[in-house]
């Protein structure tokens, strides 16, 4: 019967392989990583996990030429050079699966800390499991503001929240208005309608009283995965904003940019949160039309001029995975390094000690690959030393143009018309 029943054979095979994969030894530090590796955002999930894998590789092996902690040694020195074992789990973007995988990683895979989870909704449920079980959880890229407002003791976040990031848009515009006669007044927000986009729009709205020199004249929420953005663009044309704030994922970023061009919609600037409007796919698809889009980034290769390690890590990433590093992998890399630093200072794999070490984290900027002034967690577990940058695509390459005193290239503003 079973030889004729492929379903049964598959199940038996799965069970066998699964149970075989459980043995592990003691002088290692087991860390569980929760990321989306199938489905819609598999690409971003894969890029992000790769950065974590790179961090683990650097920690576990000797990279004498690399000027960051743990590169020169093999493993974690304070734990007798114990190596980090990374167990990667796929949560498919589902909060329920994420929670279940967190539990599996902690109980069955004996993970002493978790890192994740890309989606904020998954970070919410999986960190709840970690909180309950008393296992530290670090996130380098889940941005929902509410994550650090839950009073959790075991949750730490190195990346700035959505709300913090939205503030940079206004700071940028204010500085710009001070420097030029051409005053920016009206803003339109265009955002996709999942958590990320909705939260960005809410944050922007929340800042309006504080930045009352600007006026929000259109708030356009569109369905994520839409095939056509004509009506959205026509609404923008009717509203005539000076500046458009964008929260869009890759496919729609390409779609919007192409539709803007078709209908000759040319505001003075398009500023985006998230990497989509400056990604390599975007630049590849649009060629010269990709120029002048501004992206509020976390990381840029231009940071290498101040911090040579940035170029070294970016090169390692490129060599290993055949892809350029961007902001999200860079943040995940730093989160993993922060976790390793805490485990090393804890000198133990006891989750409680790791948590306390994390809470006492104080990393200097030269040990990171970020534009931040360091890593230090406040009472809520949020890193309060982050700083954002703006990157503009110029001649087909993303260049850091803000903060103005650190700019690697001169900002082109307003965007040349007809582009």
């Amino acid at each position, binding site marked *: 019967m079973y030889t004729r029943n492929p379903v049964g054979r598959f199940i038996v095979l799965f069970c066998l392989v699964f149970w075989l994969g459980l043995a592990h030894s003691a002088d290692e530090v087991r860390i569980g990583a929760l990321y989306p590796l199938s489905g819609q955002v598999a690409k971003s999930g894969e890029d992000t996990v790769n950065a974590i894998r790179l961090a683990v590789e650097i920690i576990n092996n000797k990279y004498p030429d690399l000027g960051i902690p743990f590169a020169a040694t093999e493993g974690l020195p304070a734990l007798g050079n114990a190596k980090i074992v990374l167990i990667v789990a796929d949560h498919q973007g589902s909060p329920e699966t994420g929670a279940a995988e967190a539990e599996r990683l902690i109980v069955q895979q004996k993970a002493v800390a978790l890192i994740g989870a890309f989606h904020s909704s998954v970070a919410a449920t999986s960190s709840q499991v970690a909180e309950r079980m008393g296992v530290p959880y670090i996130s380098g890229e889940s941005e929902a503001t509410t994550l650090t407002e839950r009073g959790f003791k075991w949750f730490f976040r190195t990346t700035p929240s959505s709300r913090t990031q939205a503030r940079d848009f206004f700071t940028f515009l204010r500085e710009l208005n001070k420097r030029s006669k051409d005053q920016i007044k009206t803003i339109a927000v265009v955002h996709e309608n999942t958590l990320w986009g909705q939260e960005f729009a809410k944050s922007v709205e929340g800042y309006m009283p504080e930045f009352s020199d600007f006026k929000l004249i259109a708030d356009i*929420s569109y369905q994520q995965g839409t095939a056509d953005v004509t*009506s959205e663009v026509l609404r923008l044309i009717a509203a005539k904003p000076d500046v458009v704030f964008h929260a869009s994922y*890759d496919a729609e970023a390409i779609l919007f940019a192409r539709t803007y061009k078709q209908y000759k919609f040319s505001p003075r600037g398009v500023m985006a949160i998230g990497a989509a409007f400056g990604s390599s796919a975007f630049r590849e698809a649009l060629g010269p039309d990709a120029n002048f889009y501004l992206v509020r980034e976390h990381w840029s290769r231009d940071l290498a001029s101040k911090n040579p390690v940035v170029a070294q890590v970016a090169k390692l990433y490129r060599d290993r995975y055949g892809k350029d590093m961007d902001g999200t992998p860079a943040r995940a890399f730093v989160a993993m390094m922060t976790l390793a630093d805490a485990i090393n200072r804890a000198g133990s794999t006891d989750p409680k000690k790791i948590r306390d070490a994390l809470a006492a984290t104080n990393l200097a900027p030269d040990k990171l690959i970020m534009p931040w002034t360091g890593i230090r967690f406040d009472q809520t577990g949020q890193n309060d030393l982050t700083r954002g940058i703006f990157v503009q695509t110029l001649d087909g390459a993303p260049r850091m143009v803000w903060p103005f005193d650190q700019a690697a290239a001169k900002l082109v503003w307003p965007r040349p018309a007809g582009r």
Partner: protein
Amino acid sequence: MSGDLLVQLFLSGIGMGFIFALIAIGLTLIYGVMNVVNFAHGEFLMLSMYASYLAFATWGADPVVTLPFVAVMMFVFGLLVYYLLVRRVMQGSMNSQIFATFGLMVFMQAAAQFIMGADYFAVRSGLLSGVLEVGPFTLPAPQLAAVVGASTATGALYWLVFRTATGRSLRAASQDRQAASTLGINVDRMYALAWGIGAACVGIAGSLLSNFYPVFPRVGAMFVLIAYVAVALGGFGSIHGALVAGVIIGLLKVLAGFFISSQLKFVPVYLLYLIVVLVRPRGLFGRL
């Protein structure tokens, strides 16, 4: 709100509508001949978009140039799907056909991601990436191509179905399988033909779309839900129904997106479907 903008909204809506119509036509043809809804239709679209992109990336061939080849390739692919999968579930119920094509959908999406990764690829400055400007109005070239493509496809299918011997056999096979068999018509071959032509139609749609839309494993899902509604609204199996319904949906969607809410722009489309089928249970032009 200026009059020009209103005209522009109508033009854009109709243009988008033809894109939906072009995708829907292949779907409705397959249904019309053999009462099967192809749930993997969006993935057929994806496959043809990847083919157009790969031809562009490898040989620099514009999607317009490779369109005939993609159509032929998709025709063959449609035949393969029919002979390898669909034919084997024709004895079963509607359930098993839904199930089989759903499995194909999941499989094709996963296979695309397996082979190409989840990255976004786009044809850069293809022949049809520009716009045509008529006075103050903008007519995007991909939409114009869809107007030509959908109208031609509809016309050609009508000619094929109603003016040729093959078409007579197709109609016979669709109306009464048994009777057609006794008249010496190879019903099996007619079904295969329907799948081939249906796939070729969506291949043409994919070729034209690849001028404008980036391609990625889930790209089909962006379009196909609307294509299903277009097919049902027009009446399952009705080719001109799919065309008309596609245009209506495109127009309604752009107007609703502009005047009501862009994140809920599909809801009025869905409501329209419900209202139409409650009044006419077979859609606008479906056979009773």
